Structures are given as structure tokens and as C-alpha cells.
């Protein structure tokens, strides 16, 4: 365990040092992450500015939901989501073997090598949006915060499962960088209150692919709204993670070095 932590910290240090080789780009990239993350909230602002709204949700409530969605994405990208691009690159170049021959879990090494400092901008943007929204709403009580933290952990589990499915598919679907578009399109449902979707879609994003956990359920918990369906979504999330791990292991077993 301690050795694993040491390896993780060393890899983290190396990743940070490698990124700092292009300091100006890093600073600019982080700043731009901050700015570009404001895009979805900006659309929401325009919608409310025009006098329209999402039924049952005020402007700052939707903003809070989008801030939480942003936060879970930011934390995922900072820590483990890079396994998708890393697997994509390694498999395409045939260098994934380098991870396989090392005396540690391949998944652990994959995660350890993908720390992405650029996502700090996204996390700052998320914290800013959440703070801004909470200042305009009733500050949540301790129980709401506990519920939120538990659901937030589940949201990270959902994203980790997605990254496993995506990274796993890279072993056979070599070099397809458009996999991110599939992910973005599916998870884009999570940026809005689930109440705007039809009933069948709500079931789909709660009990089949638990996207509602990325923003809707954690935000509802903080806002003191009803979180009916969160428990079943959490159970689905655990199954989703188990499936993701099985899928990744199965696809890894199918990996054949394709590089040269």
C-alpha cells in the first residue's frame, strides 16, 4: 500500500514536471479551462435572461447543478480520466506493453501516469460556480452536505466506469479519438435537471446509465429537493462500475501489440 502510494506520488511528480516544460501553455490552458467551462452556465444565463426557465428550477439552482457536474468532471480529469487518451496513444504506438511488463497492476499504473494538472482550471471554475450559486440560495445544512458528498463519490464512480469502458474499447477500436464525443454526448444529459426529460428518459439516465448522478442528484441533495430514485441510481452505479472493470479486463486480455 505504502509502496503503491510512493509510486503514485512519483508518477504525479513526473507528470507535473513534464507539463511544466510548457509552463506558458499550462497557465494559459488552465485559464482557458476556467473560461471555457463558463459556456454551459452562460447558455443557462441567456435562457433565464430571456424570461424562460427550466420548470421547477430557478437560475441559481440550475447553476449549482452545472457547477457540480463540472466539479465531478474536473476531479475525474485531474486524477483518472486520462487513462482513455493514454490507452489510445499507447495502443496506437504499440507502447502499452511497457505497462504490462511492470510488476504492478496495469490499471494502477495507467491511472498513476495520467495526472492532468490542466484540469485545475475546471475545478476552480466549478468551485466558483457552486459558491456563487450557494450564496444566492439557502445555505445547506450538515445532512444535505453529507448526502451531497456520498452522491458526489458515486458521480466519480460513474465517470470512472465510463473511463474504463472507453479505455477498454481502445484496445480493439485502435486510435479512435472520437470516443470522447460519444462520452460528451451521453453525459450532456447530466448538465440539466432530469425533470425536463420525458419519463422514459429519466429512467434511462437514472437506472440504466446513471448520468443523473453526475449533477442532478447531488444538486438536489444540496438544495433539499426530493432525491427519490437516488438509491436505485447508486445501486446501478455499483453494477456499472463492476461491468466497467470486467469489460476493461476482458478487453485488456484481447490486446495484441500493434505498434512498430
Amino acid at each position, binding site marked *: 500500500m505504502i509502496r503503491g502510494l510512493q509510486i503514485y506520488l512519483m508518477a504525479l511528480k513526473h507528470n507535473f514536471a513534464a507539463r511544466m516544460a510548457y509552463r506558458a501553455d499550462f497557465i494559459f490552458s488552465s485559464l482557458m479551462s476556467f473560461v471555457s467551462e463558463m*459556456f454551459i452556465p452562460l447558455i443557462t444565463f441567456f435562457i433565464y435572461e430571456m424570461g424562460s426557465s427550466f420548470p421547477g428550477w430557478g437560475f441559481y439552482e440550475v447553476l449549482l447543478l452545472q457547477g457540480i457536474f463540472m466539479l465531478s468532471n474536473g476531479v475525474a480529469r485531474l486524477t483518472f480520466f486520462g487513462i482513455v487518451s493514454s490507452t489510445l496513444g499507447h495502443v496506437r504506438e504499440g507502447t502499452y506493453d511497457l505497462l504490462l511488463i511492470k510488476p504492478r497492476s496495469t490499471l494502477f499504473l495507467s491511472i498513476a501516469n495520467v495526472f492532468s494538472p490542466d484540469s485545475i482550471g475546471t475545478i476552480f471554475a466549478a468551485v466558483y460556480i457552486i459558491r456563487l450559486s450557494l450564496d444566492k440560495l439557502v445555505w445547506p445544512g450538515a445532512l444535505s452536505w453529507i448526502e451531497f458528498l456520498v452522491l458526489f463519490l458515486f458521480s466519480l464512480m460513474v465517470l470512472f466506469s465510463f473511463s474504463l469502458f472507453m479505455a477498454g474499447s481502445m484496445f480493439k477500436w485502435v486510435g479512435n479519438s472520437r470516443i470522447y464525443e460519444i462520452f460528451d*454526448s451521453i453525459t450532456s*444529459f447530466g448538465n*440539466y435537471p432530469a425533470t425536463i426529460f420525458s419519463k422514459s428518459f429519466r429512467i434511462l439516465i437514472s437506472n440504466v446509465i446513471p448520468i443523473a448522478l453526475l449533477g442532478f442528484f447531488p444538486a438536489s441533495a444540496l438544495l433539499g429537493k426530493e432525491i427519490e430514485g437516488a438509491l436505485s441510481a447508486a445501486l446501478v452505479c455499483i453494477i456499472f462500475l463492476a461491468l466497467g472493470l470486467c469489460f476493461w479486463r476482458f478487453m485488456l486480455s484481447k490486446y495484441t501489440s500493434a505498434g512498430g
Partner: protein
Amino acid sequence: MFRKIYRYFDILKAVASATYKEWAAYRTHSMVSIFVGPVYFLVQFFIWKAVYASRGSINGFTLEQTLTYFGISALIEYLIMDFADWNLQMLIHTGKFLTFMLKPMSHVYFAFSQKIGHRILGFIFEFTPVMLIFLLVFRITIFPVRPFWALISIILGYLMRFLVDYSIGITAFWFTKTSGIRRVFLLFRDVCSGVFFPLAFLPELWQKALMLLPFQFIAYVPIRVFIGSYELGGISCSIPQIVAIQATAVTVMAIFTIVLYKIGVRRFTGVGT
């Protein structure tokens, strides 16, 4: 003169054909759009259906018109998209641009020829199937009101998109690694070109500011020409008028891109990794 034109056409044909064959090997990558396009449209459908629940129209757009706008926007994107910015910055960053310095042709023309080959593939594997889904499943009206002007406007949008993207790629001559700049520029381009929502939804001051930028000519103008009416910032134009303005903007942008390229290429020092 004609010999020179034939030569350029031969180059275009050869590069476009090679690019088509190269990317056709990864045609399943293009076919991702068959899933992504309709899913994004579905998200827009739910968002705007909820937004329009309390009112009949927003800034002159009904729900049906807004959904048509998004459908056409998605389809036009498949016709005009490119990766000239990414490609150029990658060549500069890895030092591979050096090989283009040795070739008896401009990289701008090479990249443009590549785009043609790539988009022919896009037309077959992205535009056509997604158009059929929009037409048959979502029942979107995707026939231009004035086909001739719509075609001209889409071609001009295609050129403008290439020129804007290529100019973003040229910044790599100064910064070498440009992922940050590209990210913000591309987002700014998409917001200001009307890919994400009709520019008429923006506050009027913003709309007026956008009239001074080249971005609306990439998507907003072709979509509005496709729909058959143009209006931005309180200014309405007839279809031939706005297409003429678009052609002028493309010419100015082409001059800007070529000048920027000539200045930038002098800074190239073959940075390798």
C-alpha cells in the same frame, strides 16, 4: 496560365484522394457521428421543449424553427468541419513541418486539399446517414428555401471555417504548443458562429459586436440562408446581399491568413521532440 490551373487541380485531386483513402481506413471513426449527432439533437430537443413550455417564441424563433436551426447546424457542421488548426500545430510542434518547407507547394494549399478529401468522406459517412435520421426520425425540414444561394453560402462557410482554423494553427509558429489557445479559440469560434444556438438569442449588443467578426459567416449565415431569411443585431439583409457580404468576408480572411502564414513561417526553426 491554364497549365498552372491544371497543375493545381492535379495536386488537389491527388492530395484529396490520398486523404480520402487514408481516412477511409478509419471510417468507423467518422460513423461515430451517426450516434453523436442524433444524441446531441435529442438533448437540444428536451432543453428547448422545456424552455418553450412557458412561451410561444423567443426572439422571433418558435420551437419548431429552433429545432430546425439545430438540425441544419449539425448537418452543415459535417460538411464544413476540419482539423487544419490541430494538424498545423502538430506539424510545427513535432518538427514535421520541415518536410513541407522542402515541397514545391504551399502548406496552405496542401491542407485545403486534405480538407476536401476528408469532407468527401464526411459527406458519405456522416452527413448522409445523419440527414436521413433527422428527416425520417425527427421529421426535420431540411430542404433549403433557395437551394442555389444555400449551396454558395455553405461553400463560403466551408472556406471561412478552413481559413479561421488554419489561422489558429499558425499561432503555433509563435507558441509551439498551442492546446490552450486552440481550446479557447475553438470555443469562441463555435459560440460566435452560431453552432450552439442562434445568434439572435444573444443580447442585441453582442449581436452587433458579432457583425464585426468573421465567425458568423462560418455557420450562422449558411444556416440562415438555408432557412431563407437573415437577421442579426436588428439588421435584416436579403439572401443575395448577405451571401455577397459573406464572399467579401471570406476574401478578406484569405488575405489575412496568407499574410499571417508568411510572417509565421519565417519563425519556424524545426522544433523536434
